[in-house]
């Protein structure tokens, strides 16, 4: 490996169509992004529990051990704190680690490394030691995994300055955002969802990159702005479909990254709709939704005709029982009701 390698700047101008018939799974899109970048950059390696021999606990890294070998696809002991910290060290010595947490819930035992070390390293070394590392894994309720396994870490972790956080909602974005993450010089927290890894959609075979901090407008309407990211975007679209039948039309904004947050896109939308609902799977207290609404009030208050409304998970630990878990999470029904409230039609 050459002593120093220049990391290329991602080309954001190339934006292949989202339509097409190359239908693959979300997990395959992730694998494609990883593999494409790994072929070009020998500094990138993937490390985590079950990523190599087992082909990934959720099959994201299927076949990658065969292609890249055990030096670059590395199984670890069950030591999240250990391999997170090791990754940080490797990043500081010029490598580009991708650290997979089987679930973000398990990253909690590595909290000091990922929150107290990685995002602060650059600052605390006076700009000297950057930490280009990607932490990725499943976030949110995976479906009856119980309270300790069902964490939404976005609210808690995005509070920390110095990290970036991408939360794709579809296979196309999964590939483009992960590729951008791999070229990024800062620590990137990349949140996937066990419930979406099997989702299928067209993903271009060619290479493309999606910029951080640029929301995507998934549906257009002038009555209410609905803001979300990750899996709940789909519930927002379902709700919007439902509401359209009642004559209420929504702008549905998929933020794609919450750090950085594309506030401009939100303000632009509320200038048209004057109403906003924010949907976020985190708990309500100090959630990402709280932050979005605060920023909207700070920067777009004059455009609002009604108090902002948010839909979060309930303010209790994630229930284990199937029905209770379903009742606890945001869903299309709750979102539709929230939009009606925002529009004075509840």
């Amino acid at each position: 490996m050459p002593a120093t390698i220049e990391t290329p700047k991602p080309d954001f101008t190339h934006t292949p169509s989202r339509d097409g018939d190359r239908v693959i799974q979300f997990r395959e899109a992730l694998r494609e992004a990883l593999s494409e970048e790994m072929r070009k950059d020998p500094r990138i390696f993937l490390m985590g529990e079950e990523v190599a021999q087992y082909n990934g606990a959720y099959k994201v890294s299927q076949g990658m051990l065969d292609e890249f070998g055990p030096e670059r696809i590395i199984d670890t002991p069950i030591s999240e704190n250990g391999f997170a910290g090791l990754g940080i060290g490797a990043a500081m010595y010029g490598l580009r680690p991708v650290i997979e947490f089987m679930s973000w819930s398990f990253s909690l035992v590595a909290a000091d490394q990922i929150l107290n070390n990685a995002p602060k390293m650059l600052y605390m070394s006076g700009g000297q030691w950057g930490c280009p590392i990607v932490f990725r894994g499943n976030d949110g309720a995976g479906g009856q995994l119980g309270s300790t396994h069902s964490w939404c870490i976005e609210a808690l972790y995005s509070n920390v300055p110095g990290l970036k956080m991408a939360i794709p909602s579809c296979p196309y974005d999964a590939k483009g955002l992960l590729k951008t993450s791999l070229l990024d010089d800062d620590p990137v927290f990349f949140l996937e969802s066990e419930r979406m890894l099997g989702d299928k959609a067209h993903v271009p075979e060619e290479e493309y990159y999606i910029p951080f901090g640029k929301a995507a407008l998934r549906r257009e309407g002038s009555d209410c702005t609905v803001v979300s990211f990750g899996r709940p975007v789909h519930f927002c679209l379902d709700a919007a479909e439902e509401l359209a039948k009642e004559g209420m039309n929504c702008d549905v904004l998929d933020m794609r990254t919450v750090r950085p947050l594309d506030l401009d896109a939100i303000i632009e939308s509320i200038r048209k709709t004057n109403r906003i609902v924010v949907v976020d799977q985190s708990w309500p207290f100090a959630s990402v939704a709280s932050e979005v609404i605060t920023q909207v009030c700070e920067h777009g208050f004059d455009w609002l005709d009604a108090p902002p409304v948010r839909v979060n998970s309930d303010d209790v630990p994630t229930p284990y029982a199937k029905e209770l878990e379903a009742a606890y999470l945001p869903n299309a029904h709750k979102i539709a009701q929230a939009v009606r409230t925002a529009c004075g039609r509840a």
Partner: protein
Amino acid sequence: MPKKTAYTAKIEYLQILDENGKLDERLARGTLKDDEVIFLYEQMTISRHYDEIAFKLQRSGRMGTYPQNKGQEAGPAGAGYAIRQHNPEAWLVPCYRENLALFLNGLPMEKILLHWMGDERGNQIPDGVNILPISIPIGTHPLHAAGLAWAGKYRGEDRVAITFFGDGATSEGDVHEALNFASALKLPVIFFCQNNRWAISVPSSIQTGSETFAQKGLAYGMPCFQIDGNDIFASYKVVKDAINRAVKENQPTFIESLTYRLGDHTTADDARRYRDPEEVEAWVGRDPLIRTRKYLESKDLWSESKQKELEAKAKEVVDAVVKKAEGIDKPTTDDIFDYTFAELNGQLIEQKQTLRTSSLGTHPQQEGLQTHA
């Protein structure tokens, strides 16, 4: 300058009942009496059947993910029985693969099924039973055992804490901090590590560079032992001795129980994809149930008809347990509120009364959801 050896250590390995059912009479002295062996054989057989039924319940959609205990019954049986006989007040701090130790110490059998069916009430432990909830974040609970033991010592009790965890868990930092605390603060903790050779698909040879898992406790300055974990005599004896040391000398013990996970990691796994069938076959030959039965037969304490009776009893017991678990009413929305704080407060009071939770627009009558009257 003197040059000397600053430290040397050995790890003792203990097996009393070998895989052919042959007992080392000398080592067995003062351990299990014949009626106790029969009792534990019965309990292991019932536990094995419980496992099979749990597996079937999962396959037929009546239960969530379940981790089978199959093949590992003897370690928890001997350890659990030693606790029950010699320190019945002890705290048991489990992970998820030692059902029998819990059952032997008063956990109602339907609780484990209820838990894996997705009902938090499976972890509601009856009064007077000193068992902590099943712990899924790997390796985090041995610190709780150290804390319980510390509290017991503080209260002037002779209560030990025994914690169960896997080979894989020893890679978590928390486990090492627990070992250090237990030793440095002289706490009556028994660390029972079930080395079943696998952590999902990761073999224990990749998990650690140490020759044994037992030696991990040495660095923290506590007595460490390796035992044949498929031998109820060995696990009973080593835990009984550990209880003595804990109570008399406030000394922790680290035990590596060598065993094998005969089933998949959980019902969500298929171990055939990464395990050599010959390895599994070899361990089937070391099955704790088979060797215990051979021993009993060699002493004319067991017969085909007794076996038939026992199998019928196991079926009866487990059928009743399943009935009980499935007969319990589904959890209600009240649970969400009642279990979040010791006392309901603030907005939650109103939310409980109105059944409108903090996310706006909640519909009280979610499909399939029972609400309070």
